[in-house]
């Protein structure tokens, strides 16, 4: 399972390939499979993503793809020590789930 992530050039925000475009939510990440490299090359050439790269994915508890490595899951959430700054402020469980 392959997930593509990168950043928005102007804001630096982390983005995830959702099958059609780029989402700020890791939950939207799609399995790009064997096309990952082709998609990333095309999107970088079109300057729709900055500093993109491909990571391993795995099925999450809800069946949707999620990053296989803890680093990328923290990237998807935000700093576990400042939940107020993450995409899920106030969600105590979120930090534990990514570890």
């Amino acid at each position, binding site marked *: 399972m392959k997930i593509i992530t990168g*950043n928005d*050039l*102007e*804001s*630096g*925000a*982390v983005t995830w390939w959702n099958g059609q475009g780029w989402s700020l939510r890791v939950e939207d990440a799609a399995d790009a499979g064997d096309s990952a490299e082709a998609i990333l090359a095309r999107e970088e050439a079109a*300057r729709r993503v*900055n*500093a993109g790269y491909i990571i391993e994915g795995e099925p999450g508890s809800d069946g949707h793809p999620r990053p*296989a*490595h*803890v*680093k990328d899951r*923290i*990237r998807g959430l*935000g*700093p*576990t*020590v*400042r939940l107020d*700054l993450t995409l899920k402020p106030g969600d105590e469980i979120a930090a534990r789930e990514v*570890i």
Partner: protein
Amino acid sequence: MYQYDKFDQQMVDTRVAEFRDQVERRLAGKLTEDQFKPLRLMNGLYLQLHAYMLRVAIPYGTLSGAQMHVLADIADKYDRGYGHFTTRQNIQYNWIKLAEAPDLLEDLAKAEMHAIQTSGNCIRNISSDHFAGAAADEVADPRPYAELLRQWSSFHPEFSYLPRKFKFAVIASEEDRAAMRLHDIGIRIVKNDAGELGAAFYVGGGMGRTPMIAPLVRDFVPLDQLVTYAEACLRVYNRYGRRDNKYKARIKILVHELGKEEYTRQVEEEFALLLEQNIEPPIAELERIKMFFGDPAYDQDASSEIDRSDPDFALWVDTNTKAHKQPGYVSAVISLKPVGGIPGDATTAQMHLMGDLAARYSFDEARVTHTQNIVLPHVKISDLHALWTELDAAGLGTANLDQIGDIIACPGLDYCSLANARSIPIAQQISERFAKNGKGDTLGELKLKISGCINACGHHHAGHIGILGVDRKGVENYQLSLGGSEAEDTSLAKITGPGFDEAGIVDAVETAADVYLAAREGEERFIDTYRRIGMAPFKEALYG
């Protein structure tokens, strides 16, 4: 404090304009990310785990209260209400937008600050003793030499694409409060037998993957040859430092592989040639810079009496203030390590308060320490209670300087794309554990340092107790090491054995602390006991 003249101002203004142009070309697609990356890095702008991160230089850790206010304003205007003070006396902001970075740099430039060369393979911000100008044991204030080197190293045309980053530290006392020998070049200002000042050069120290203590390369460089000698050290490195492997590219590897004698011979040869080029600023320039670092207008009648009736205050005074060369004054250390807090973080409000307190109680001057705390260098003893009262009310009055709660921690996997494990939660749990069990004060001086990866930004090699986070098959794992020191008795810590998980490492630290408490004799610090009894009793308790 140093103040820019029209030239210094023009240089930072020009850099802002240059970077604005580079950002515009990047946003317009005229620069690729590969081409833009070294340019943004030379302006301190990283692309981190979550966003762009900007590192602002605080030259030799000295800033005014007004500059502290500007740092606070930037945290509000461009970031999310806080900043992170680093082990190289800088501040980092974690949520910067590329399109706004030039405006931010312009705001900084108006306050005589910049982010120049805070990253990239160039000469980085020059660090120094955070008690410079206040310490009784210095032969001179080291900061004028650091400022001279700051100007020499800024926009250096030959040394902006070095094999790897390059860090200087300058001190001027026997006691080392700046981890001088763990820098690429450590300079100690010394006095020779004739009473003249000069510079001892230690070259090739560093932490990272291959920690090394810098050997002494020249014991006395006359002050009118300081820049030329530094230039020679750098030129040999630029020409012969390894570029085939980034993990072997620091100058410590070159010095190690050539041997200290051969490296020194090459430097001396280059130095002799460079002397003919007349690249050294005149002593008058050093004297000009020194004028900015004169003593403030101390109250010569300041009293050293202190009312210790409030035990919390008395504890803070004993723990967080340091003797000053001027009678009636101390240097006060503001701990950015509240129990359970994030080491080195300060909110906008806290920065504003520290700026106010610097103005009110410390001749408008503050310092950043390499241990991620803030110093008010010149505080009247009679003002201490008022100062502490305000600090305490703002969560800045923790009395734990150099104790186990005063932890150095890198941002780790919570923020850093290079990290393998989180550092901050480990620091939080350890400080909470020792606050709860009450052993923090009993343990006395115990320097605990945590890095989230082998790059060692958290100085774990130099911790009395060091912790290194590693990735073990996708799970965070923590190696414990003992016996490091960044002070004048510089030593590198040794790993105890197999690593621990998150809960295990906190227990392991307590176990190590207990071994010390049981074994210590007299006034021994943790490091003294460790050096006397060795690793074995610790291993036995940890793994036995």
